């Protein structure tokens, strides 16, 4: 690792290269794509949560001038196959409902017309006869044997079910002085990216090839899924993702069925078809995180040591299950015990289906669900022991000298100093002072609470984790999976200018900027002159199945690939320069864009002359060397290995730390929450660009605040979605976000080239529970149980009312 002090650009507040084009409306999104003779699609969606489709009459719609064709579930069934999914018996999930609908908003037919207006008008002319079926909306009811069954081929609503033991939980539970348990309900909540799903598909019957523009964020595993569903080889389907994507957060994973659907619409009608999802469709039927019911119990020693956890978690993926699920239940395996030295875990995992909209990862991919239980329970343990919630965390933290630390579940925590970061957060808030304030406030009948969450934020998913959905015996029969690869290519032109070809399709993370900073430091050049292309094209780009921007992987594996490629190029430049100067490469120094022999500055050659030689005078190169100047790196993380026979897996390959310390006050009349003080402390290793990191952390906090107080995809008991507009699905705006002290502790990761790792998901995992802990702490004298989100004023009002009635 180069000396951090020598870094000129990494770690600096270098302004984002992306912003100018975005601010002046020159970004390039899928909706900017205009192709000759392009037609437009609109989708008719089910108003029923569960019903048989008796008949679809499209005759009137077909007669509407401008309508070019209609694709129904029957066409989809004939033209494609169900999407594969990594569960023992996958449901028959097609891109469009066939015979039966299983959630409100499920696509039933697609109209292709000359304009979106005509397509939407045509939807009104399609008559669909439904025969409603009984619905199941509750997670636990869905798992009961007498529940209405969604998929006959499965025979129950349980998509995935596993029992896992780590360490010796039974023994630990026997040795415990105290058992503390709770039931926790996490709501169905999601992301609301500013750009909705978007697809432009074109089928060429001459070479039987699809060209599909879309705004999918990777990984390219979904390219394989769509090819399998369409029954075509992958090289017959070219995906192109434009430079800009307006936010992903995991939600865009759910665009893949629409890629297949619009591809089929193109194939059937013979037209190039564009479909841009509208906001209502997005809120009703795109993808959300899973709602989860958790029963968690801790085995504790009287001194506060948490020996073991028992965890039964039930996730709900809605009307179907689709990739990357059942990842919801397995993705956090490696970090399941959070920031603590808990060596024993008894896990029961269940993924069920109800008549709700389908799921996708949601920023933090179920770590918010996990930590909502773990961190609430830690507070409950502290309360039972009469311990301070900060003290119990210090008691159980992994120690700084234990890193790299292997968790009971197989996670390999690369680096951290949790004590240091947490203490810093407590200091910023002035924790002892607020405990005193709280005492005073309580005597005055005011509700002040301090909420804490200390969590481990996994980044760089190891694709191996998905196979923990299978038992070790089932895994042994199948093909193993492992890896978290990323690819980067760097090239230098004959005048010595640098261009980087990335394949990370960012959705706002500023990769162009950070790539430029890193390369500038590595090559000693100015970042302004470096150009980056991040247009993904499956035909033109080199990638692996895990490539893309998800799981906060750029700062870890993305930078590893970039630094590796850049150093390969640099190595080649040194070799050429040494050859031209007739010295050995280790005698050379690169300084001010010149190579010179150590202690002989006059014996030098400019980088651009070396570059020029590589291109223009190829016979002058050292013998056996490839001509030209480029280098690629396709690498995975060294810890990306398959699960072992005990289901232990390093499910992510770097792990950051994050903690929140939040002081709230609840208005006893309106139950509105006021934030007095909030410190959010992060350790994501080396900071690459503080300005970009600030934006990421602020976004993540806000997203977490939405989950804590506002956001939920609500359904009535009949299965109707009640939150299909921003009037009812409440997202926090700048007005709802208080002043927050964001800080960083930098413990460089030994697993990455620059010591950096993911950061943009952390607070999304810690904020929901930290706010809940603050509210629980505020209302503790009333004996209120806080075990669900979002904590809306009306919910808090009812809880206070009930608690007071009980006390009276």
């Amino acid at each position, binding site marked *: 690792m180069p000396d951090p002090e020598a870094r000129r650009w990494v770690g600096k507040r270098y302004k984002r290269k992306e912003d100018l084009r975005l601010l002046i409306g020159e970004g390039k999104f899928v909706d900017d794509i205009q192709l000759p003779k392009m037609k437009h699609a609109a989708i008719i*969606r089910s*108003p029923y949560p569960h019903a048989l489709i008796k008949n679809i009459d499209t005759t009137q719609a077909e007669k509407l001038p401008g309508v070019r064709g209609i694709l129904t579930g029957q066409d989809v069934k004939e033209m494609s196959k169900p999407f594969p999914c990594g569960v023992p018996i996958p449901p028959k999930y097609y891109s469009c409902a066939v015979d039966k609908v299983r959630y409100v908003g499920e696509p039933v037919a697609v109209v292709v017309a000359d304009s979106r207006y005509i397509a939407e008008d045509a939807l009104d002319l399609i008559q669909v006869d439904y025969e409603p079926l009984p619905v199941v909306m509750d997670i636990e009811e869905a798992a009961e044997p007498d529940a209405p069954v969604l998929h006959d081929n499965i025979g129950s609503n349980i998509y995935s079910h596993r029992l896992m033991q780590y360490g010796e939980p039974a023994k630990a539970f026997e040795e415990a002085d105290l058992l503390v348990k709770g039931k926790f309900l996490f709501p169905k909540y999601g992301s609301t990216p500013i750009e909705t799903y978007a697809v432009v598909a074109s089928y060429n019957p001459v070479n039987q090839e699809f060209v599909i523009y879309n705004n999918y964020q990777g990984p390219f595993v979904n390219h394989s899924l769509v090819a399998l569903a369409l029954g075509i080889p992958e090289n017959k389907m070219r995906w192109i993702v434009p430079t800009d994507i307006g936010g992903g957060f995991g939600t865009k994973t759910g665009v893949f069925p629409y890629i297949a659907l619009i591809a089929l619409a193109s194939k059937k009608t013979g037209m190039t078809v564009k479909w841009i999802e509208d906001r209502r469709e997005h809120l009703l039927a795109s993808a959300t995180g899973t709602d989860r019911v958790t029963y968690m119990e801790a085995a504790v020693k009287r001194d506060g040591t948490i020996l073991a956890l028992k965890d039964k978690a039930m996730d709900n993926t809605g009307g179907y299950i689709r990739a990357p699920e059942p990842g919801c239940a397995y993705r956090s395996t490696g970090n399941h015990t959070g920031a603590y030295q808990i060596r024993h875990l008894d896990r029961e995992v269940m993924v069920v289906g109800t008549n709700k909209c389908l799921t996708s990862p949601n920023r933090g991919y179920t770590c918010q669900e996990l930590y909502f239980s773990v961190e609430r329970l830690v507070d409950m343990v502290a309360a039972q022991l009469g311990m301070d919630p900060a003290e119990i965390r210090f008691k159980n933290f992994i120690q700084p000298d234990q890193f790299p630390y292997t968790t009971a579940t197989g996670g390999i925590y690369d680096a951290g100093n949790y004590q240091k970061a947490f203490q810093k957060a407590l200091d910023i808030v002035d924790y002892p002072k607020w405990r005193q304030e709280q005492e005073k406030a309580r005597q005055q009948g005011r509700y002040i609470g301090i909420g804490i969450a200390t969590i481990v934020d996994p980044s760089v998913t190891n694709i191996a984790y998905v196979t923990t959905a299978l038992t070790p015996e089932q895994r042994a029969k199948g093909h193993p999976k492992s890896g978290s690869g990323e690819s980067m290519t760097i090239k230098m032109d004959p005048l010595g200018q640098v261009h980087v070809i990335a394949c990370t399709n960012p959705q706002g993370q500023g990769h162009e900027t950070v790539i430029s900073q890193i390369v500038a430091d590595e090559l000693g050049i100015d970042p302004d002159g470096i150009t980056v292309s991040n247009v993904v094209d499956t035909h033109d780009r080199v990638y692996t199945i895990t490539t893309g921007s998800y799981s906060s992987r750029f700062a870890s594996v993305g930078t590893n690939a970039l630094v590796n490629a850049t150093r390969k190029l640099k190595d080649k430049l040194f070799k050429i320069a040494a050859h031209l100067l007739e010295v050995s490469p280790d005698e050379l120094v690169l300084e001010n864009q010149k190579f010179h022999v150590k202690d002989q500055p006059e014996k030098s050659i400019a980088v651009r002359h070396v570059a020029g030689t590589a291109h223009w005078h190829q016979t002058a190169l050292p013998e056996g060397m490839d001509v030209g100047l480029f280098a690629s790196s396709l690498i995975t993380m060294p810890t990306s290995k398959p699960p072992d026979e005990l289901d232990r897996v390093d499910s992510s390959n770097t792990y950051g730390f994050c903690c929140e310390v939040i002081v709230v006050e609840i208005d006893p009349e309106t139950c509105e929450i006021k934030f007095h003080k909030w410190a959010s402390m992060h350790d994501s290793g080396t900071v690459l660009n503080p300005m970009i990191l600030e934006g990421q952390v602020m976004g993540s906090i806000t997203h977490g605040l939405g989950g804590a107080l506002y956001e939920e995809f609500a359904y009535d008991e009949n299965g109707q979605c009640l939150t299909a507009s921003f009037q009812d699905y409440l997202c926090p705006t700048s007005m709802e976000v208080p002043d927050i002290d964001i800080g960083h502790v930098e413990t460089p990761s030994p697993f990455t080239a620059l010591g950096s790792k993911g950061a943009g998901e952390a607070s999304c995992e810690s904020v929901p529970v930290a706010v809940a802990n603050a509210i629980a702490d505020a209302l503790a004298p009333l004996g209120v149980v806080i075990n669900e989100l979002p904590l809306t004023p009306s919910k808090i009002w009812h809880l206070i009312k009930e608690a007071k009635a009980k006390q009276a």
Partner: protein
Amino acid sequence: MQLKGKYEFNGTQQQVWDLFTNPESLAQAMPGCQELRETGPGKYDALMKIGIAAVKGTYTGKFEIADPDPPNRYQLIGEGSGSPGFVKGTTDIQLTGSNDKTIVTYQGEVQVGGLIAGVGQRMISGIAKMMLNQFFKKMKKELKASGSAGS
């Protein structure tokens, strides 16, 4: 969604019963009713244009007068669907007459689905009340008209 209420009519129980089982009067009074066609005894097909907030659309549906107990009570069963979703409901209509006045009591449950549920739910009970008010007002007018026609 639960709906209940009562309205007083200036007419005998039999007059009000006749009115409430007369498809023409019903069609006149139903907000947005474009067409009401009898398909069998007490069964009708309807075409209605209704706007709920931003959700406007045309619904085709069926109505049925079930379990009639003239002139005391019947059950109105209806369902309709259109591009904004569907509506279905069952309402008990009860008539209580004394002298020349009749009180019409209704109590029922309505279910909505699709877009109207997702976007309009928060406004829907208010709008349902408004539409019922319009309906009963018009029915009163109808009663007056038929009464004056008869005298």
